[in-house]
């Protein structure tokens, strides 16, 4: 399983110091430093590259967005077309995340607890949306849900197409976060509950679901973030019609193509804030899980 492709892992075995505690928590004022000369140089070069590639460019977005002041920042968001795009993006991402919470958990359940021929293939197909180039994902969905559809339905250029694209690209997130947790789940507790007379539904609601909860939250967060930022799969599929099927990242692209970088940066900083919020939520969930385990 390529959970890494998704980033959909709760890594309880994250980097910890040899002593088994996270640095900077016990001794917040003086973090330990065990860098030797060579490693220090390595860190310096890596940080320089990381700054040039990631940190400086992302700060440039914030700087450019802030350059016009608060008023011009709000003006960007107050634009009707932009606001419609943001609303559509958030609404569709929320709907798809809810679908994923149900379907992702069901698929993970079937992959772990059920046994049938072809299960291994199902397991590999789950990862296809991650590996497929997003532009190809749009083309693939057009083949079945666009004009000339063998199903006779044409969802291209409708709001449904946005949901479809989001659902496609975010399919693996919750499956891949819930699956490993479900595999590790202790069957003894379930059997104890059953022997004490708990019904299957009660066992699921009171025992299984609470253990899956952190994984579902982590997966839902990742899937929401991915949906909010999706671009490639919508280009061919949704037609990007203003007020109807235009999402936030498509709006940013049209700002860039018109050369209005400041406006693009303002809207981009909103998406960036969502991305940062996701990282914070995941970090909190990870630490909760690590503390409990």
């Amino acid at each position, binding site marked *: 399983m390529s959970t890494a492709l998704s980033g959909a892992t709760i890594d309880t075995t994250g980097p910890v110091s040899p002593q088994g505690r996270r640095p900077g928590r016990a001794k917040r004022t003086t973090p330990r430093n065990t860098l030797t000369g060579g490693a220090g140089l390595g860190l310096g070069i890596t940080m320089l590259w990381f700054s040039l590639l990631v940190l400086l460019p992302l700060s440039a*977005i914030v700087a450019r967005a802030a350059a016009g002041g608060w008023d011009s920042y709000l003006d960007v968001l107050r634009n009707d077309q932009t606001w419609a795009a943001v609303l559509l993006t958030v609404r569709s991402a929320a709907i798809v995340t809810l679908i994923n919470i149900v379907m992702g958990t*069901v698929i993970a359940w079937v992959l772990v607890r059920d046994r049938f021929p072809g299960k291994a293939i199902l397991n590999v197909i789950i990862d296809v949306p991650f590996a497929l180039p997003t532009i190809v994902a749009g083309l693939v969905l057009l083949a079945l849900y666009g004009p000339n559809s063998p199903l006779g339905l044409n969802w291209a250029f409708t709001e449904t197409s946005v949901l479809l694209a989001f659902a496609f690209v975010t399919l693996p997130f919750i499956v891949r976060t819930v699956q490993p947790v479900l595999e590790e789940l202790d069957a003894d507790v379930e059997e104890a509950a059953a022997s004490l007379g708990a019904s299957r539904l009660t066992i699921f609601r009171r025992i299984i679901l609470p253990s899956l909860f952190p994984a579902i939250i982590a997966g839902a967060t990742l899937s929401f973030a991915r949906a909010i930022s999706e671009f490639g799969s919508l280009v061919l599929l949704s037609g990007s019609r203003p007020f109807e099927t235009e999402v936030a990242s498509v709006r940013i692209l049209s700002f860039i193509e018109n050369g209005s970088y400041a406006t693009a940066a303002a809207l981009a900083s909103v998406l960036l804030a969502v991305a940062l919020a*996701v990282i914070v939520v995941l970090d909190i969930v990870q630490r909760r899980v690590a503390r409990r385990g």
Partner: protein
Amino acid sequence: MVEVSTPTRWALRLLAVGYVFFLVAWPTGLLAFRTFEEGTANLLDTLREPDVQAALQLTGKVALLAVLINLLFGVTISILLVRYEFPGKRLLSALIDLPLSVSPVVVGLALVLVYNSRDGWFGPTLEENSVQVIFSTPGLVMATTFVALPLVIREIVPVLTEIGDDQEQAARSLGASAPQTFWRITLPSIKWAVVYGVVLATARSVGEFGAVKVVSNNISGKTQTATLMVEEKYQNFAQDQAYAIAFLLVLVSIACLVTVALLRPKTEE
């Protein structure tokens, strides 16, 4: 383990398989079908076009460079994160994941703001030294490297944490130099993690679209990658050709998936 009743099991099974079939399997299969609807001639003719060959070559070149850079950077930073303590380590570890949740368009815009030759932070200076980043190959490589950055690291870090540093310390105490320890002890034990990371990064790099679209001016033969060409061909009503190139990209990504799926269980046992 508590068994669910047979009807419930069948219902769940059907629901899961049906959802995946309609959302992923059938559409992807249909793409392959459309590519070969009129035989293999379409695919072969498309491949013979010079601009298609140029786009595929460019994608190959950009992906190769991006993967090599991420390999070097990924191994270094994983070792630093797991084996050393330094101020700001936790922040760095969290920031590494940022590229996974940032929109590709935002990635492209970020690079444009810093490196465009008109009013970028570094762009004009680089332009004076006749280095063009945006609308040129370096920009494509940077955008691709950015989006695939965490993949190698996410594979190596857990493995490196799990194997511990006992063997490395033993080697060092017996007089091995740092490079010797790396090549003889550390690298062999993280070999598979590195391979997975590289395969996943390759899949991501070959398929990148959004970030590349922003930093490229889409000139055929110069800055048009395979994914950009799929878009252009489709919008110019050359749908057969779009399907053919898309089919090649699907082959690459499925090959990457199958490689990982086949390799992984062997080493986990």
